């Protein structure tokens, strides 16, 4: 284990976080929020101190292998979410350290589950930081670090970092060097973000609200800055803009890169995006018809339904209506949509549409093999064969996914909540959505849970964002053994 190299990477990670916190400090200064100012100042001090200390380390002769990559990503995420929660704790807005950590994990993992009963009571700068963690966590802090800090110098070892942090069963480099790939990803991300802010401001939303809501949309996070979430902005235009952009941020970013490279046709043929859009439109229609009696007008039902489906599928978790009060079919369909979530390589969470696609295709191939045992039919996706190790990787992921669900479910059951609350809270946290059903529905929040459950849910959020294995490997003894 190359502890020095890991420490250096984590040092840079903390420096990046500290640098971004300066913006929150600025907001606190503008709105003259004394308590928040002090809280941010102290946290920045700690981050920069530890960061500079760690990055001063000498690199040493060792190399970085896959396991160092996994450990860096897992430890890095635990640490940045811890330090990201400190301002809430120091300023006294969230007096309990575990709660502050939960809120911060929920931010960085782009979950959007909150323990706050009254969001509007937070200071402006705290709201800013809370929403900004979504933006940073969405595309990935390590990806940002790779884009900014020239770490690789021709060696491919930082590829292990990208692979451990990026969502999806495989990682595509968009450019020959990692730094360029990371820069392209962030460039697309930033441009989309700016467009959304402009569109929201044009629709009459105040600039500060537009910025924060865009952060939460871009990262597919879902922290609202109003107690009523997006329902606080009744304009159908604003709701539609947010709904469309949630859907856009849930698309694999390589598709945008293809479009920019002038290969729009290839982008349209992407099987995962087709499945994603298909499921989204079909579910929208089903729910719209299901809730039609409740709202009377089809256009209203359709908008509400599209917003909610987009919000849940991309694992954002915004709400324009309390879907907890919708008919049973709509409620449960939304929970089902949570499981597979958005596309791989997007900012969204869940098990990813591409895994669903591979699962369906390999099941189909299996069934054909039962009928014609000697027929050769490889699983194809986007014109290429899906290799056997990728398929078994998807099976292994789904198995681990199921097991974590079972263990978490049993741990959460100590709280004596209803099955609906427990299961939907688990699904909403593990898949990084935010609101669930019943007590944790859009109108409720996570303060009802005991400290144990909050801790379990926080770990679930991290497991979900890092796609299980990096964090799970942290607890595997062979990772820490001196000799591999």
């Amino acid at each position, binding site marked *: 284990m190359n502890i020095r190299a890991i420490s250096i990477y984590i040092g840079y990670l903390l420096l990046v976080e500290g640098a971004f916190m300066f913006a929150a400090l600025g907001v606190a200064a503008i709105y003259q929020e004394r308590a928040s100012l002090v809280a941010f100042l102290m946290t920045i001090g700690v981050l920069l101190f530890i960061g500079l200390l760690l990055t001063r380390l000498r690199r040493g002769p060792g190399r970085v292998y896959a396991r160092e990559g996994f450990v860096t990503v897992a430890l890095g995420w635990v640490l940045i979410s811890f330090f990201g929660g400190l301002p809430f704790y120091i300023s006294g807005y969230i007096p309990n350290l575990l709660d502050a950590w939960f809120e911060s994990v929920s931010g960085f993992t782009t979950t959007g589950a909150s323990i706050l009963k009254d969001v509007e009571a937070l200071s402006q700068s705290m709201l800013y930081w809370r929403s900004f963690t979504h933006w940073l966590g969405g595309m990935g802090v390590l990806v940002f670090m790779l884009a900014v800090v020239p770490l690789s110098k*021709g060696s*491919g070892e930082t*590829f*292990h970092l990208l692979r451990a942090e990026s969502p999806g069963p495989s990682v595509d480099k968009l450019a*020959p*060097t990692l730094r360029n790939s990371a820069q392209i990803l962030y460039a697309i991300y930033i441009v989309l973000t700016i467009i959304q802010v402009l569109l929201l401001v044009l629709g009459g939303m105040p600039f500060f609200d537009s910025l924060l809501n865009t952060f939460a949309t871009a990262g597919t996070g879902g922290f609202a800055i109003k107690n009523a979430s997006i329902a606080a902005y009744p304009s159908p235009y604003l709701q539609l803009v947010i709904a469309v952009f949630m859907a856009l941020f849930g698309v694999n970013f390589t598709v945008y890169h293809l479009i920019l490279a002038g290969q729009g046709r290839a982008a349209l043929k992407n099987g995962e995006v087709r499945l994603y859009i298909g499921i989204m439109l079909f579910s929208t229609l089903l729910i719209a018809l299901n809730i039609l009696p409740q709202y009377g007008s089809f256009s209203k039902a359709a908008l509400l339904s599209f917003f909610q489906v987009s919000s849940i599928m991309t694992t954002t978790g915004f709400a324009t209506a309390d879907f907890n009060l919708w008919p049973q079919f709509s409620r449960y369909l939304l929970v089902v949509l949570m499981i597979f979530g958005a596309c791989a390589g997007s900012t969204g969470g869940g098990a990813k549409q591409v895994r669903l696609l591979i699962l369906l295709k390999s099941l189909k191939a299996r069934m054909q093999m039962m009928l014609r045992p000697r027929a050769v039919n490889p699983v194809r996706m986007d014109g290429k064969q899906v290799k056997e190790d990728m398929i078994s990787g998807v099976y292994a992921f789904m198995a681990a996914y199921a097991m974590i669900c079972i263990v978490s479910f049993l741990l959460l059951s100590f709280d004596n909540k209803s099955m609906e609350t427990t299961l939907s809270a688990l699904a909403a946290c593990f898949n990084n959505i935010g609101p669930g059903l019943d007590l944790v529905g859009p109108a409720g929040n996570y303060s009802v849970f005991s400290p144990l459950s909050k801790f379990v849910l926080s770990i679930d959020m991290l497991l979900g964002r890092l796609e299980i294995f990096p964090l799970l490997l942290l607890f595997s003894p062979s990772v820490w053994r001196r000799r591999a």
Partner: protein
Amino acid sequence: MKIVIVGDGKVGFTLTKQLSQEGHDVVVIDSNPNVLRTSQELLDVAVVEGNGAYVSVQLEANVQTSDLLIAATSGDEVNMLCCLLARKLGCKHTIARVREPAYDQQLRLLKEELGLSLSINPERAAAREIFRLLQFPPFLKRDSFARGRAELVELKLKENNPLIGKRLFELGDLKELNALICIVERYGEITIPSGNFKLLEGDKITIAADAAELARLLRHLNISTHKTQSVHIVGGGRIAEYLAAMLLKAHVRVTIIERDLVRAEALSLALEDALIINGDGTDQELLLSEGIKQTDALVTLTGIDEENLIVSMFGNYIGVPKTITKINRTEYYSVFANMGIDTVVSPKLLTSDEIVSYVRAMANTSGGSVTALCTIAEGKAEAIEFFINEDAPYLDIPLKALALKEEILVAAILRSRKVIIPKGNDSMQKGDTVVIVAPTGDAIFDMRDIFINENPKLGAAEKE
């Protein structure tokens, strides 16, 4: 620069490593996903799986917008096809590896039609290197610069060498011979020595010298050398064929031992004056019966590194004056350097030197372009040749007044056919060809890279 490399084999990987570490955007194409995975994990490059001679694969690797495509697959035909295709797609330069002697000869006819910027033949390059070493057997490595007029030669200080125990400033007479000790390698570490440096037995030194003075240099150093008159070659591959042809032309007796009968017959047809033996070159009895004890040099060129090593060690053991070993896996060099295997030739390193110097010359936009490059001291240092074709601030200033970066040395200057091994009072002039020695890793692309800061004059930084 954007570079696409087709073929992720020995040469391909060496090139990928070197070029990506020099900061180029490299995409590697190969049909074997396993070697691609290794490349991607070890190096910061993109990979594309597939046949590099397919348009679809080349488009996926963005060949149409690349500056250079290097085809280094095992098939000559595939390489030529890759380059032809890349030119049609709009790639600016192409380099193909072409190894087959017959193709190599007819390439002159085809080079233009194929749009090749450069064709490389690792086997011929290796044969040439071996031939040059056999001309002066005491040297472990010879690299020529300035169109062959200056050389960097590597020498191991064995007992009785008059240099042992001397400090460099005591070697004034070496300067009269127009020679300069550039690099000393001791226990695997390299030093660019200063005047106070003391030479010890076992040191490996690299000397910059006038090519015409090599024989005198050896005499001066008290190293006995005799002309190589007979050479035994084990393994009759392409290198052996090229090498034997060169040796025969220089009236050296050649014996080649080849295991495969068909190949042996082909060799015997191609090389009329050589003695071709069909048999196992690792068989001691066969070697002894073919007179290996009396030969001047043994060259091991089979396709298997281990066999080459064993046979060369056996040659050393029975007292062959010079053994040369072909090694593909150079990573292990330091392990067997201690076992008497000191002269080693690696086709892949020769090839990558040639290509890297070409790429640096391409990347160099301002004056003073790279005209040759070779790695020395086991790849720990490199010698780079520049041609100065512009007015630059560092010209006409005595070397001792220039602020060169640490560990960088001006090893030789060629001015109108005359080799100058520079001393402190010499200076560089426009029109000179200059050889620079520097540790690897600095990636020197331009003459300006050798100075500490913009202003090349010593002490200039403090004045400002």
